[in-house]
């Protein structure tokens, strides 16, 4: 069996087991959750090590395929290539970290952990699936847990409103996507209809999609996926929802689940519908400015730390969209890099703000200040996270954003220029102001204690460590990403169907890694 199956099935299995554990066995439930996510993280990391980066694009590794509902062309198909490799590893690490930081949940632990495991399993399943049905199915699996977790364990007066807002908004996006995906599936001739992403992509390598259908499907997918990624102006669910969610939910959602839309655009929409992609990227490029500049400016005004992180996370999505809009290998490689980096960053930020809220009982930045003296470890990590958020070199966001800007310069010079300004200046303003408001100052905080001990520090160390590791050695990922992104770009620029010679690839020396058997 493919390791990918274990990665998402372990949390789901844990959720199922927990149903049968009596509710007062709190310790057992928590250990089970930790064990399941830890195991799936280890498997993911091992898989990352065994991934053969030398294979060129279009090839999936660790594949596993079964029939599920053959009459509809639905199958169980998992596999990994450069595009989802980093996302799966990042998702598994975040899932473990999210389970770690849920230590303080004191009411109805059983339900909490069942929902958390369901959510983690669903998210990881969505990124491992190579079947459109499963891809959608697993994503939706996370919807109900999000709703209940925000409502029951969330914080703030608006949590009720936030729970409904996030659920309804995401449902709109998901259902638009569903209509689009079904329409896409129906473009295949009767008899060979399949939900298999590889099958569909292969079919459209040699066939062109009907223009009338493409005109409908591309915007459906663009805005459907766009809502899921909080594309401006459809982003309003994100800051409020994350601000009210318990830290674990916000980590998984902002960190991992939100990347689903970007992943879908890269994996499905771009390669299959090049003609419409060409038209819509201009719209996308200007909408992404809304994310970067507008949401950045809104973030400056926030006084609540969680809302600030929420808005900054929406702003970061702008860079990811810009990379997609560039339709270049380097730009989309940058997007994937940002997706991974932002996953770690968002999870880290929400984990830290959750810790702060536990200790100080407030997230109002006007009431905070002077916390660095009391919380040296948490403070240092948070300042690092905020610096990473401004795009400081040395953290994983920097290579991603840099690549996106390089990629988009040719096509959208103005947008790229404004994006740099938005990212560096506006981002710098709100992050530095936040650092000053929260960490500096004279205020004394009796009774506030730092994260001590290996277990409490582990989630933060894992996340910030991954950020630094990828920041210093981005080639750990970028080579594999580029290999897999190139065929996407070739299809998206419509080159293949015009029978032009393949794009010139920069000669690179193959990775000096022993080729191991993927199974």
């Amino acid at each position, binding site marked *: 069996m493919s390791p990918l199956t274990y990665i998402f099935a372990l949390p789901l299995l844990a959720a199922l087991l927990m149903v049968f554990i009596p509710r007062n066995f709190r310790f057992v439930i928590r250990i089970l959750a930790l064990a399941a996510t830890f195991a799936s993280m280890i498997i993911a990391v091992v898989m990352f090590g065994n991934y053969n980066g030398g294979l060129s694009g279009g090839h999936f590794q660790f594949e596993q395929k079964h029939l599920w509902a053959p009459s509809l062309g639905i199958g169980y198909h998992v596999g990994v290539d450069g595009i989802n490799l980093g996302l799966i590893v990042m998702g598994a690490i975040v899932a473990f970290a999210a389970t770690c930081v849920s230590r303080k949940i004191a009411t*109805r632990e059983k339900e909490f952990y069942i929902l958390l495991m369901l959510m983690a399993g669903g998210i990881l399943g969505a990124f491992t699936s190579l079947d459109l049905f499963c891809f959608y199915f697993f994503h939706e699996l996370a919807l109900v847990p999000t709703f209940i977790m925000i409502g029951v364990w969330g914080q703030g007066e608006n949590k009720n409103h936030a729970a409904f807002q996030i659920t309804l908004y995401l449902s709109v996006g998901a259902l638009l996507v569903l*209509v689009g995906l079904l329409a896409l599936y129906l473009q295949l001739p009767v008899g060979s209809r399949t939900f298999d992403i590889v099958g569909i992509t292969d079919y459209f390598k040699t066939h062109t999609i009907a223009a*009338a259908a493409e005109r409908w499907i591309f915007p459906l997918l663009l805005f459907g996926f766009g809502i899921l990624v909080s594309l401006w102006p459809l982003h309003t669910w994100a800051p409020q929802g994350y601000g009210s969610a318990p830290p674990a939910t916000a980590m998984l959602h902002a960190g991992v689940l939100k990347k689903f839309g970007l992943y879908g655009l890269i994996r499905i929409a771009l390669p299959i519908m090049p003609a419409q992609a060409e038209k819509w990227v201009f719209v996308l490029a200007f909408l992404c400015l809304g994310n970067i500049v507008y949401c950045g400016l809104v973030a400056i005004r926030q006084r609540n730390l969680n809302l600030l992180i929420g808005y900054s996370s929406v702003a970061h999505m702008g860079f990811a969209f810009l990379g997609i809009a560039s339709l270049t290998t380097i730009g989309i490689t940058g997007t994937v890099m940002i997706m991974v980096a932002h996953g770690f960053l968002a999870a880290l930020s929400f984990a830290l703000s959750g810790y702060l809220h536990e200790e100080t009982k407030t997230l109002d930045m006007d009431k905070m200040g002077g916390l660095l003296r009391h919380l040296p470890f948490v403070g240092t990590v948070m300042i690092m996270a905020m610096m990473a958020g401004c795009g400081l070199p040395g953290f994983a966001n920097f290579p991603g954003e840099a690549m996106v800007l390089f990629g988009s310069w040719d096509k959208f010079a103005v947008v790229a220029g404004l994006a740099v300004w938005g990212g560096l200046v506006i981002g710098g303003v709100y992050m530095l102001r936040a650092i000053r408001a929260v960490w500096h100052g004279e205020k004394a905080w009796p009774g506030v204690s730092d994260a001590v001990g290996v277990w409490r520090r582990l989630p933060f160390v894992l996340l910030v460590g991954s950020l630094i590791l990828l920041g210093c050695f981005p080639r750990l990922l970028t080579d594999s990403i580029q290999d897999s992104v190139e065929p996407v770009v070739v299809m998206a620029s419509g080159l293949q169907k015009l029978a032009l010679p393949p794009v010139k690839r920069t000669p690179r020396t193959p990775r000096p890694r022993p080729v191991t058997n993927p199974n």
Partner: protein
Amino acid sequence: MNLLLIIPEISVIGLALAILLIDLWTPAAAKPRLGWLAALGLVVILVMTLADSVNTVSITGFSGAYVYDGLGIFFKRFFLTAALLVVLMGIEFADRIPLGIAEFYALVLLALAGMMFSSAINDFMLMFVAVELITVTFYVLVSFQRGRLLCLEAGVKYLIMGALSTAFLVFGIALLFASSSATNFSLLASSAGSLAHDKLFWLGLVVMLVGLAFKIAAFPMQMWAPDVYQGAPTPVTAFLAVASKAAGFVILLRVLFVAVPYVARQWETLFIIVAGITILYGNLCAIPQRNLKRLLGYSSIAQAGYLLLGIAALNRDGAQAVVYYLLGYLFTLGAVFVVIGLVCRESEDVGALAGLNQRSPVLAAALAMGMISLGGIPPLAGFAGKFLLIKAVVEHAAFDPRYYYLALVMVAGVVISLYYYFGVVRAIYWPATPGENNAPIHISPPMKISLAVCMAGMVYLGLFPNAVLTATADAVKALKF
């Protein structure tokens, strides 16, 4: 031999009469236990029908009025399962029915017989008789709790609206007969050429469809659903919501795609309008509802709208989706109404569910699963059903781009519906205010089994659609598009 074809129907009627007879010699205290007899009989008949295969050749009987085919067999099992569930709920509910509990069981069985006939109609005459058998028994069933004002009100409303729809139905059939001088579906289908453009024939068909819209609670005959759902005793509401609606849809499928497929093909605009309005009406009106059963009444209008999409799609996949969706709907609403019957003894307000999670985690999970399935979220039956419906609609959009808008209307409807379905989920799981009723709820073994079956059915249909899809594909073989 013709009579051999209708053994299940005859057995059900015989069972009903037997219960009425045995009732005469049963002491009052033991009467609720007659339900066990009814349930046992239903199980036996259900097992009997399992001997038939859905993948069968169709045989007509009774001068072509009755047809024995896959669709009929599938729905007979469906109705038997629904009735079994309702009878079990009735046993649980017996303490709230002051008298005539034996008649209650007998009436449920008679309605069941009507439904079983309605799934096998091949003639407008038999259709009318079957529909009336269902509707007339429901007049009585809806107002069974004579002491409750709401219940009587529901009965009167159902009676008036039912009588009105019957009038439409008869008038429509009369016009059809006047223009075609035939009531048999096969005859009508074979005279396609001459009738396809006959205005009188069209008028008759439209008027008759209005009458059928009453059964499925679709626009323009949807007004009764919320009042009746709210007022009727809970098992009757369940029966009405699941089986009566399914009977309406199987009749609709038979009429449109067996008798007059050549007309149905030209009615895209009509179907788009009716389905769209039904979806939006049901969902928008459900938003402010606080009474759980009333909310489900509006939600059932919306669900009828979704199901109409499958008919509007005018293709085999659409019909298959309707059948699949109805099966999922049976398990979903089964779970929901079992929980309502157990929990909402005094108040049916959504607020009365507060703290249900603490009172009984099983019931809380069942009701939440039901709501999630109704909302169409994976991994439950409702999702698979809606998936198939949207697929069928988008499939037809290749021929008529207006269907993309119809798909978007459905998307809008589903999103609106999540608001009120999740409102119920919120009531279940959000912390209860202190001072609320916190007594644990006792669940009797038959209710436990029913719940388990419904929950398993929801998950099975959501996760493993293949086996049932094969069966539904066989079931809709008789239809023409």
